């Protein structure tokens, strides 16, 4: 059967694992469909530090994960250069920490293949002026930062360039079975209500923590361990190197710079599955993150906080450790035919943002074996769309000759794909978001090419509303553009409400000082002036 609704493989989940798996499958010539209940990167993919791990954090306790991390780290620098920033990182020892741990740490790093250099605390202070000046030891490692939204969007774009199809805001309501085999899915579009069936001989469950529920829907059990992690985004980029604590992994001991901001995290709390859809950051978590963060970089205590957020780690439960921290972050790929006698169903889970490509490779190998396809994986050597050239400044120059600040920012966000942005006239060049310098042209590019249907989708693709004003005005401007592009104003108005609510959700846990000032202003502008 070869109808428009029939594919070789259906991938469930629009996080980085799903997007990476679709890209790999598509590049090996399979006809692919990706289905996502909400938008791309709405789960753990978009709710973490954005740390390009060197693997050093895992080196002492989990050598396998550490080795995977450094290998993937080096690969991502080549294939996803427009999504990452090669900042390097420090592991610092503070007076209250055991300096003896440093030796174990460095030895473990080297065994895992991580270039860990012990440096003088003085040099560390010079390299990273924001670091706690009381440090008594420092190790330099090849950490970096990665924009998970961009990475996810680029994987999906490449899958589409290889013939893949993507259906966002589409929920799987059940599986289609023939005897002991899964042969497709029943879905409903959450925006239009349209019900539709899709068929494929293999379905891949790449739903992160929601994979537990998805497996249950298919009639098999995948034991998972939802562990919430809370993080704070600060309004300035106080550090240029990632700062970690050189001790056993604990709460709030990583500070990652990214674009114009920096992020402190994280915590680890076991939560029930029912809470995965609505994780909230508590005042205690906020206080802990601020106190511990200031130990890494003291200036954090006087830096404005932009937002609090939390994600749920999709850990596969292995033992009864209540913190979830000692569980291996290893990759788990389950062929349910071998495990449960259910044909045509594969679960890919565990792992980390860092190892998404490897997870995708393993999952795709399994899919290909089932389909009898014999094609090698090439994702480790093929740059993602946007990353064909390494220097975004050179890209910007090639496209625009003498690029503006906004054009440079666009090239940094999109890499070589920035050449698709309409520009060079005053209408397309007008700025929608002044904090992040996003132009009308870039918004329209995202709407046309990157599967944007709501304002919050747009935020994930372009950084509109992610800057210091958190979308005070640009949300409205972007909503206006979306309304025009989609011709549905009622939807755009509802979007605007969702966007403002989403923003408030990240703001009230940190609602004091300037954040409360902004909140009062937003109440005034949206309720009284605009009449939303």
């Amino acid at each position: 059967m070869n109808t428009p609704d029939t594919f070789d493989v259906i991938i469930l989940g629009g996080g980085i694992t799903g997007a990476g798996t679709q890209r790999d499958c598509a590049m090996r010539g399979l006809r692919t469909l990706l289905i996502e209940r909400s938008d791309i990167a709405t789960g753990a993919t978009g709710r973490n530090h954005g740390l390009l791990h060197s693997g050093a954090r895992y080196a002492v306790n989990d050598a396998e994960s550490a080795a995977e991390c450094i290998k993937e780290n080096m690969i991502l620098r080549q294939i996803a250069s427009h999504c990452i920033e090669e900042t390097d990182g420090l592991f610092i020892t503070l007076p209250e920490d055991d300096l003896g741990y440093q030796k174990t740490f460095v030895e473990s790093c080297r065994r895992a293949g991580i270039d860990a250099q012990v440096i003088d605390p003085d040099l560390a202070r010079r390299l990273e002026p924001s670091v706690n000046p009381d440090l008594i030891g420092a190790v330099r490692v090849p950490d970096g930062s990665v924009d998970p939204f961009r990475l996810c969007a680029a994987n999906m774009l490449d899958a589409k360039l290889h013939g893949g199809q993507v259906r966002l805001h589409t929920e799987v309501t059940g599986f289609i079975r023939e005897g002991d085999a899964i042969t497709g899915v029943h879905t409903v579009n959450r925006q239009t209500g349209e019900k539709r069936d899709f068929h494929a001989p293999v379905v891949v469950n790449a739903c992160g923590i929601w994979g537990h529920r998805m497996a249950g829907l298919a009639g098999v059990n995948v034991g998972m361990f939802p562990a919430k992690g809370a993080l704070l985004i600060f309004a300035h980029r106080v550090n240029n190197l990632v700062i970690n604590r050189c001790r056993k992994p604990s709460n709030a001991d990583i500070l990652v710079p990214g674009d114009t901001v920096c992020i402190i995290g994280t915590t680890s709390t076991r939560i029930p599955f029912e809470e995965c859809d609505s994780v909230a950051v508590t005042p205690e978590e906020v206080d802990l993150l601020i106190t511990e963060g200031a130990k890494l970089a003291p200036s954090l205590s006087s830096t404005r906080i932009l937002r609090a957020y939390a994600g749920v780690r999709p850990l596969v439960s292995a033992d009864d450790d209540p913190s979830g921290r000692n569980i291996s972050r290893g990759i788990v790929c389950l062929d349910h035919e071998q495990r449960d006698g259910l044909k045509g169903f594969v679960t890919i889970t565990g792992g980390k943002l860092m190892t998404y490509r490897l997870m995708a490779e393993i999952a795709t190998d399994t899919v290909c074996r089932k389909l009898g396809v014999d094609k090698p994986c090439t994702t480790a050597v093929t740059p993602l769309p946007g990353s064909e050239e390494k220097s975004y400044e050179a890209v910007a120059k090639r496209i625009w000759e003498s690029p503006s600040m906004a054009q440079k920012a666009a090239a940094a966000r999109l890499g070589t794909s920035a050449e698709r942005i309409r520009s060079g006239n005053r209408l397309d060049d007008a700025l929608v978001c002044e904090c992040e310098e996003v132009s009308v042209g870039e918004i329209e590019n995202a709407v046309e090419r990157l599967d944007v249907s709501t304002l919050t989708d747009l935020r994930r693709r372009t950084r509109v509303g992610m800057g210091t004003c958190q979308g005070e005005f640009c949300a409205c401007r972007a909503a206006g553009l979306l309304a025009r592009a989609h011709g549905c104003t009622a939807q755009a108005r509802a979007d605007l409400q969702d966007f403002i609510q989403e923003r408030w959700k990240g703001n009230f846990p940190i609602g004091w000082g300037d954040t409360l000032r902004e909140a009062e202003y937003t109440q005034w502008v949206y309720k009284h002036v605009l009449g939303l």
Partner: protein
Amino acid sequence: MRFDTVIIGGGLAGLTAGICLQQEGRSCAIVSTGQNALHFFSGSFESVEAPTPRMSDLFTQAGIAVHYSPGVRLMPLGTFRPAALSLSDVTLAETPKFARKVLIVNFLGYQDFFTTFLADGLEREGMSCRIATLDLPETGQIMSSPSEMRSVQIARVMDRAWEKAVQEVRILLKDEDTVILPQVFGLNDSSVPERVRQAIPARVIFVGTLPPSVPGIRTQQLLKRRFEVLGGTYLSGDEVLQAHLHDGAVHSIVTRNLGSHYLEADHFILASGGFFSKGLKSNPFQVSEPVFGLDVRQAGDRSAWYDPDFKADQPYLQFGVETDEALHPLLGGRPVRNLYAIGSVLGGTRPELGTGAGLALRSAFAAADGILESPVIPNEA
């Protein structure tokens, strides 16, 4: 420097009180940081059901054109809201279906005016709409800079080029009975909105844009001018750093620009606004009033400050300076006898005075009356 009354805050509340006092011959100084809530004014005076003669006089004498007719107004995102006392820029209609055919006009490249939202809102009420854009060389010039197409910049151009815009609208107009334009007319010349109305052969409705609010800035300027014409001293771009209290009364205040030249007065008025205007300050543990350290009504635990639903009424907006019946704020539980608190710094602590603009006006009149009723203290100097 010595005045009868020193007012902290130059928004609607502070200026109203200052005008009332100057009119009665009391010398006033207003210390203003420069920006205030009038810059984000919607154009309708909230919680004012019907204007009192005193309000009407205030506006008339300041040259602020207002009108009053309970009805509905069209909001920037195409919804309708009940409104009563409003600037004359704002059109008040009896029902949402106020027209048959509407022409919505925007300036090319202006993103802060929401034509599609407006059209959608009007069409749902049964009106038919057409959207058109004006591409004038005058606005084209500011458009060449990617972040200059904002309300005030366009309004500056319109103060001199409004007639050209009107010409273009006349050409665009077909059989529509109503024209909707963004509120970017009459920033410095308050006669412009009415002249635009007269010059277009259809009903003209001005609808709000993203802030800053052009009619709001104009209102602020007119009130300030009126205050200064009456002899008041308006200290703009200054900030109160400290207050000196003696024997339960304020003796003087210290400002950033005046330094050791303290501002002394018989009476002081605190009209410093809410959180955004920095009249109220907060840290993770409490909300405070930064100039005098006055008692602030608040919920104890931070988690009780907010409703997680943005749409809901937010508890923190009810926080404000506690006062006695005469609007003397409390310090350590005792009223400061020559100090008055007015406007948003009261938050929701005085519900009988209303909210927003209504609270500002009513509390300003009440404080001015309190001062005028008290005996004039002979100047020591």
